[in-house]
């Protein structure tokens, strides 16, 4: 896949009318701290993510990939610029619709079983107990993890744990999935498997996917690659978009 300008991302097959904008950043920036110790993690970033997009954000550590992902998820607010989520109906942090998150380290709660971990976000979102349980079991079954439902996270291997995280995302059926280095702690075999599962799930629930990764093998499987360096998105010419 050739690195393209990061702004437009619609694929040719979809007509502009039906393409729904899931997230849009306009000149977004994030600075930590104040005065002399201020660190500019991200600046001057403008991008659009539409339904069905598969985007890889690449770049060295410190380039701002994670920051951009955090902003897209609504976990952090930009110090400059605006972000909108038209398709989600508001900031995923406050609204009913959430973004699915996959972190580098498996983010399972150690004192809850696999099944309980998967149901948790559904319960937070207001689902009834039985409904949450059913959807969680379905998600686990879909990923062939239902045999592990009563295990504790510490009993799982790295790959298994990440797949449980993806099941958790699947059960919530979000419209936007954000993954920050989801395979970097896994060995080759597991990394391949997890990447495939992630893509399959996105197909299944028709969600937009944004993955921050430095693994070119993963980046290759996605439709678009947005390189970042030193806190901003680059175009194919190496300039800011």
């Amino acid at each position, binding site marked *: 896949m050739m690195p393209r300008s990061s702004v437009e991302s619609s694929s040719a097959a979809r007509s502009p009318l039906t393409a729904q904008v899931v997230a849009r950043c306009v000149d977004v920036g994030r600075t930590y701290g104040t005065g002399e110790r201020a660190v500019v993690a991200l600046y001057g970033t403008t991008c659009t993510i539409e339904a069905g997009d598969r985007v890889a954000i690449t770049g060295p550590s410190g380039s701002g990939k994670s920051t951009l992902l*955090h902003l897209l998820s609504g976990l952090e607010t930009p110090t400059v610029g605006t972000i909108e989520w038209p398709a989600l109906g508001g900031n995923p942090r406050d609204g009913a619709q959430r973004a699915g*998150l996959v972190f580098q380290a498996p983010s399972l709660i150690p004192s809850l079983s696999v099944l*309980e971990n998967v149901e948790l*976000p559904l319960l937070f979102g207001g689902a009834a107990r039985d409904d949450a349980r059913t959807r969680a079991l379905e998600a686990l079954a879909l990923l062939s993890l239902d045999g592990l439902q009563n295990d504790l996270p*510490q009993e799982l291997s790295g790959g298994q744990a990440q797949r449980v995280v993806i099941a958790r995302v699947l059960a919530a059926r979000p419209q936007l999935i954000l993954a920050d280095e989801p395979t970097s702690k896994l060995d080759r075999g597991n990394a391949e498997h997890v990447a495939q599962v992630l893509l399959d799930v996105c197909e299944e629930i028709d969600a937009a996917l944004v993955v921050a990764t430095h693994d070119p093998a993963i980046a290759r499987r996605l439709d678009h690659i947005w390189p970042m360096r030193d806190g901003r998105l680059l175009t194919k010419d190496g300039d800011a978009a």
Partner: protein
Amino acid sequence: MIRIWMAGLLRRQPARLIGAAVGIAIAVALLASLGAFLAHAKATMTSRAVRSVSVDWQVQVAQGADANKVAGLVAKTPGVRAVQSVGFTQVPGFTATTSGSVQSTGGGFVLGIPPTYRATFPGEIRTLTGASSGVLVAQQTASNLHAAPGSQITIQRPGLAPVSVTVAGVVDLPQVDSLFQKVGAPPGSQLSAPPDNIVLLPSSQWNAFSTPLQKARPDLVATQIHTQLSNSLPSDPAAAFAQATGAAHNLEARSSGTATVGNNLGAALDAARGDAAYAQVLFLFLGLPGAILAGLLTATVASSGAARRRGEQALLRIRGASVRQLLRLAAVEAAVIGVVGCVAGLVVALIVGKVAFGSASFGATTASAFAWSGLAVAVGLVITAAAILVPARRDVREQTVAAGRQVITASRLPWWARYGFDVAALIGAGLVFTTTSRNGYQLVLAPEGVPTISVSYWALAGPALLWLGAGLLVWRLVDLLLGRGRRVTSKLLQPLAGRIAPLLGSSMARQRRPLVKAATLLALAIAFAISTATFDATYKAQAEADAQLTNGADVTVTESPGATVGASFAKQLASVPGVKAVEPVQHRYAYVGADLQDMYGVQPASIRSVTALQDAYFIGGSAASMMHTLAAKPDSILVSSETVKDYQLHLGDLLNLRLVDGRTHKQITVPFHYVGIVSEFPTAPKDSFFLTNASYVAQKTGNASVGTFLVNTGGSNSAAVAASVRKLVGPTVAVTDIATVRGKVGSSLTSVDLSGLTRVELAFALVLAAAAGGLVVALGLAERRRSLAIMSALGARRRHLRAAIAGETSILGIAGLIGGVVLGGELSTMLVKVLTGVFDPPPAAITVPWVYLGGLAALIVGCLVAVTVGTLRLAGRSLLPTIRRL
């Protein structure tokens, strides 16, 4: 290496070191404060003993020795401030002719009093009526002879002509027991009662009276050198006792057998030192659980850093550190914590001692100060070793670097739970309790007059086992509730957590051990606070009752015998400012058979408005029912158990007593019916006495005169009211107030002022409870920040996060409070029963200090709420950084 390590720790992770040191400081401070309190209490006991003695030494001059030489020897003894020679003559009896009839008494004594005696020893003789010098007759004797100032009485002399004297005054001898002690006799062979018949003559008159008798019957005449010592005694009763008796023995040795010392001061100090030893055991026993709790707290705080420490150890092992090097690092860390904790604890104790007791020392003597602070430090170091070193050693030995570490530990029952140690300990406690109860809870075995004290430590095992067993049981029950009973927990959390309640229950079940530990600690701390506070409150109430028993009421007005004051005088007394109620009490003498006993007549319906009558005073009914009987059947009489035995009385039996008729001044027989036993009564002596209905006696004898007025001032200002009353009634009437009497009460132990100790122990209990509730929980929750961050990232709302945290603190608080209250109540009851020997009379029920307990509950709830809110806020603030690190 060690220097770099410690410097780094101190700069980067001081909280971990300080937290552990705080726990140790609390334990050390508590024990050292106890030492300070005991130093203060012992000093008080000593000074009280000294004040209670009027004549320090009564030096008996041996028969045939030169009294003047002995007096000179005594006067020259270092430490002696004043000497007075007192003559003792034994006589067969006295007679008097009054209003046409001849009264005569049995055997008695005639004393020779120097002119300066009363100035030197003001507490020995108290004028009731008449002049203060000249021929003085004891109150009982005057009553027997119907003598008053101006009467003529005749003193019999064996083999010689009787001597006639004119009575100048009637006196009371407050220290008559020690005045007539058999100097030099072993304690068991003292007279059971002092002589009734005593006449005091001025020395010159006595010399004239006794010298001829001495030639004929030298065995009947003796001289005593009454000695006053200058009070430079050490504050420790045992040391003071040693000094006083040492000086006395020294004198006896130097006198080559001519002097024997009746050591009143020594006797009083002996009692005080026995009480001091007992007090030591008592308060150590009360304070030790607190120190142990502080130790457990330290262990918990230290163990919360265990995971981090294990990680560091693993890293060091990778780098090639040997086990010995790791242990050395752990030892240094433990040493720093231990030293800092001990020093801080001692400093705090010194400050506490200064503030609460006014003295900054740990013991009455240098030796005991060292012993106490040494004990406190030793306990502190033991706690350090147990809480920090032992787990570090265990980690080093067990851990292999390569082995994985489990976050969720297996929840197997600990060894003691599998073998049922908790139940065994509780059964043991019950057994010890019932066994000691059969002995009437005799904690201190000190038969009358025997100088040794032996404390039954065995009886203290009961409460100790109860602590242990109940603590372990609480652990087991909370573990059960959170583990197997997770469904119950989930249901309890429903109102707080809504849909995620079952998940919270599951999560708590899997990570329950820290929570169980915290709940147990909290329960134990609450139980300690409750039992300490209840014991203190009961103690204070009983000390109050004891003082009331001796003094009668807040202020007691005692008429001189022979005075005829009617009950109407009560109205005058009631008009004195500060007086709430006045009750008249008759005081007569009645003959039963050949026996003369005191008889008290009361107004049964109203007597309890001025003095608290304890049920323990009576046998065969409660105080209320006895008074009711006296009121309903006016000819009822309550007698002592000796009287019942001597006269083979059965309930309802007729008992005829001979009383003096006020109109004819002759003896008449008055019938009574026996209804019950009274063993103690305010103002009554330790001997047998009668208790009757005043109006019945007044009606039968035509004499309504009142012997004593009991005044209720509402408990405050008794000394001030007493002063006002004194102005009203004049010098011939004795006015005593309860505050002064409290200082002189028989058992110096119960008069020990607990207020300082109370403040200290209860403050410590509050600190411990707050620490257990707040600190431990806070530490546990700090570990949970990562999970909270994940939950927040997954969409948890504020109320979900709040439920996750508040759910734990609520369960902890409820379990801790329930366990603590139950255990505290049990302990209080058991403690009061086991320590019954301290109380005289023993308490009928425990006094519950509701205000303190309410404050305790509020404090704990407040701490838990603060921790919950604080953790929420902390979690909120660290959310983003934690998420970023995910």
